[in-house]
């Protein structure tokens, strides 16, 4: 009997949202394909964003597994629970930590991120016990074992991982210092007024949040460490200055990486620009943003979309990954944050175009804060129609906002209809324009 054409072997490195969504999308289209999912972190997909909840005992690791544990059996995925150490692009095979090799026909890199290392000379050489990150399950276990009530900790970096780490360390009973290099918190998304509302809230909880507090280096002093700059002596340091693609194992393999970010260079269909048959999705992919810039997109929802798009590309479809309008949400201690559309960033970052938001180009900003609360709304306007929304302390449906932006609704119309986009629990006061609301030129 002649041998049938063997089913193609799809290999996916990484079982978080991008990888597992890709695997499911491939299975939904191809019942016979051989699909192997490799991860060295955890045997089941789990929600990395819940590390803070696991740390403080609000969830168990099992609670964060977002698909049933029999997913691999039902979907007939082969599981390899081991780290990949290298890719042989020409030979289409992977080397595993234990020495085995795995051959593939199509490969998806969905390897995610690691916490960005603190740029201190020699900081990581002796694997110091005081230095932590808060991105992977390994980070969590290490920090969980080290952080004891009564200790002092410095969280370095004014972003989303930093605020989550500061919150849960504070709740565990550590004296928590939250050190933000910039003049105010989270300047990529908030302006000074909003950031002050958040900082006030964080300080109200008892965390020592400091702005304009760059840390230049460290000095050991017995079991403690002294941070140079703020001149602060602490037991532990959590580096939360961002994440970077976990692509170190690909260096020199022939899979092109971006020099600046370390992201896998991909085309519109998420296929590697240098190694055909290899695709990338999620945090590790250098994708094109709506403003034309190219950088990794470190978001849960877009990792899911990229995984699904990459799966179709691997199956041979002619697809393009399109991000669409920006939206996001976060939570700073108890204060929820929702954004959609274009909000100019207060602090320019490498790789991003400067914000063209001058008053003479027709830009305006509408803003109000409900007095005495952490409730704010900001609407960015150009030539009379709304372009972006930022809200703290109340819940909003970003889809409705995005539709208004798309429909080029004027500010007055939007303010009159804001309650249509509310997404709060019942019995909460409706949105109202306050006498203190301001409309200023420029954004």
């Amino acid at each position, binding site marked *: 009997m002649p041998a049938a054409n063997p089913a193609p072997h799809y290999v996916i490195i990484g079982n978080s949202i991008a990888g597992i969504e890709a695997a499911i999308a491939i299975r939904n289209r191809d019942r016979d394909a051989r699909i192997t999912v490799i991860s060295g972190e955890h045997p089941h997909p789990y929600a990395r964003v819940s590390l803070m*909840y696991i740390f403080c005992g609000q969830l168990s690791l099992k609670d964060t597994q977002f698909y049933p544990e029999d997913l691999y059996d039902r979907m007939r995925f082969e599981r390899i629970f081991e780290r990949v150490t290298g890719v042989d692009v020409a030979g289409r095979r992977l080397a595993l930590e234990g020495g085995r090799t795995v051959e593939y026909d199509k490969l998806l890199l969905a390897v995610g991120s690691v916490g960005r290392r603190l740029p201190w000379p020699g900081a990581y050489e002796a694997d110091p016990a005081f230095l932590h990150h808060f991105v992977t399950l390994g980070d969590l276990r290490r920090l969980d074992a080290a952080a004891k009530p009564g200790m002092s900790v410095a969280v370095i970096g004014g972003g989303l991982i930093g605020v989550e780490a500061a919150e849960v360390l504070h*709740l565990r009973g550590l004296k928590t210092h939250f050190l933000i290099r910039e003049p105010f918190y989270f300047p990529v998304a908030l302006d000074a007024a909003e950031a002050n509302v958040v900082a006030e809230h964080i300080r109200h909880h008892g965390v020592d949040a400091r702005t304009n507090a760059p840390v230049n280096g460290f000095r050991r002093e017995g079991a403690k460490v002294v941070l140079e700059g703020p001149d602060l002596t602490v037991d532990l340091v959590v580096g939360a200055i961002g994440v970077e693609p976990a692509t170190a194992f690909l260096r020199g393999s022939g899979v092109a990486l971006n020099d600046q970010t370390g992201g896998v260079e991909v085309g519109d269909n998420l296929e590697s620009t240098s190694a055909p048959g290899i695709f990338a999705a999620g945090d590790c992919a250098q994708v094109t943003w*709506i403003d034309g810039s190219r950088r990794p997109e470190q978001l*849960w929802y877009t990792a899911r979309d990229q995984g699904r798009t990459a799966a179709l590309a691997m199956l041979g479809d002619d697809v393009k990954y399109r991000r669409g309008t920006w*939206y996001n949400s976060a939570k700073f201690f108890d204060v929820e944050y*929702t954004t959609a559309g*274009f909000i100019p960033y207060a602090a320019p970052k490498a790789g991003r175009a400067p914000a063209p938001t001058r008053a003479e180009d027709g830009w305006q900003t509408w803003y109000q804060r409900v007095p005495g609360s952490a409730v704010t709304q900001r609407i960015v306007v150009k030539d009379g129609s709304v372009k972006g929304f930022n809200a703290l302390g109340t*819940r909003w449906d970003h889809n*409705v906002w995005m539709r208004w932006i798309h429909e080029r609704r004027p500010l007055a119309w939007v303010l009159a209809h804001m309650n249509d986009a509310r997404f709060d629990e019942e*019995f909460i006061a409706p949105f109202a324009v306050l006498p203190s609301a301001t409309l200023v030129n420029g954004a």
Partner: protein
Amino acid sequence: MQAGLLSTYQHPVRNRNGLAWALSALLMAFYLLLYFGKENYDAKDALTRYAHDPLNLLIVKLGWPTGDNGSLWVFNKWYLYAALYTLGMAIGGYFMLKKHGNSRYHRLRTYSLVSVQAILGFMLPIALDFAHRPAWYFSYFFPLKYDLFFPYNLDHMQATVAAWFIFGSFVGIPTLVYFKGKRAYCSWICGCGGLAETFGDPWRHLSSKSDRSWRIEQFSVYTVMFLAFAMLGMVLADGLSAPDSPIHGWANHYKEWYSLAIGAVFSGVLGTGLYPLMGTRVWCRFGCPMAAMLGLIQKFGRFRITAKKDMCISCGNCSTYCEMGIDVRAYAMAGKDIKRSSCVGCGMCAHVCPRGVLKLETSKDVGPHGEIQVWTLDL
């Protein structure tokens, strides 16, 4: 995070450990004493009369005065139970609000539940009893209160009271549920739901979210609903049939069996006793015929939980803290609205969601939230 949920998984009695099993055994033992102690109505003196009823005996031994015929009159074990029940709800409600009182929805519904229990479930019946009037619990309806239309109740029920219960059971509560969801009864009024939401709140994360438990739930809850309506049919047949009909005997056996198996064992001993092991709504989820009936109405009614499209981060808080074992996250990840007959609308999923993805809604129109589209931005 929700500060009150800190260390849920490190807590000594919230994780099915030895203490949780011991507490479960204690609760079951209490319900066994409550339901299975029998008063001997022929006995002359109090101690003999309550010899087989440990809780009443305890009341007598503690020095509570007995009447001439050895009766405890108003203060019998059922009022002891009601007092403990109300106290448990008040204390549980206090701790529940310490955790979740930052939500106005939770504050209002907790006040409502505790007030309904304190007034309609405790003070009013005891006052009626003192006044030598029949003591009714006006917040319980058929089929949850399965013996509402038994002859021993109907015989001394005034017409206005009967009208209240008939209207409430078959028109009032169902209509409310059609417009506002099952939560209007289960999470705002009901005493069983009230105990679960307050005293039982510490164990809400223990309810199983597996497909298997969902299948068992559907089988068991609709079976009990069928049994409850079958009993109503028998009671009616019993009332309408000739005096020598064998139906009387069957109806009596059936009523006794249902009272024992469902009324005492399922809703009491297991329903509350299993809180520390299987989550808070064991009875509501697997057994309550009223929940089953109202769930069917909810399915056709206006209540739903809307999931904001594309904002879920799969964290797991909603599913974990759903006391009815609904895998809320699966819906939120798919951006699908949740319309499940079992949902009691407690609102915890929306409350603990760190991204504001879920919203309890009853508006008639679908609203502006119902579309998915990838928008592009031109500046």
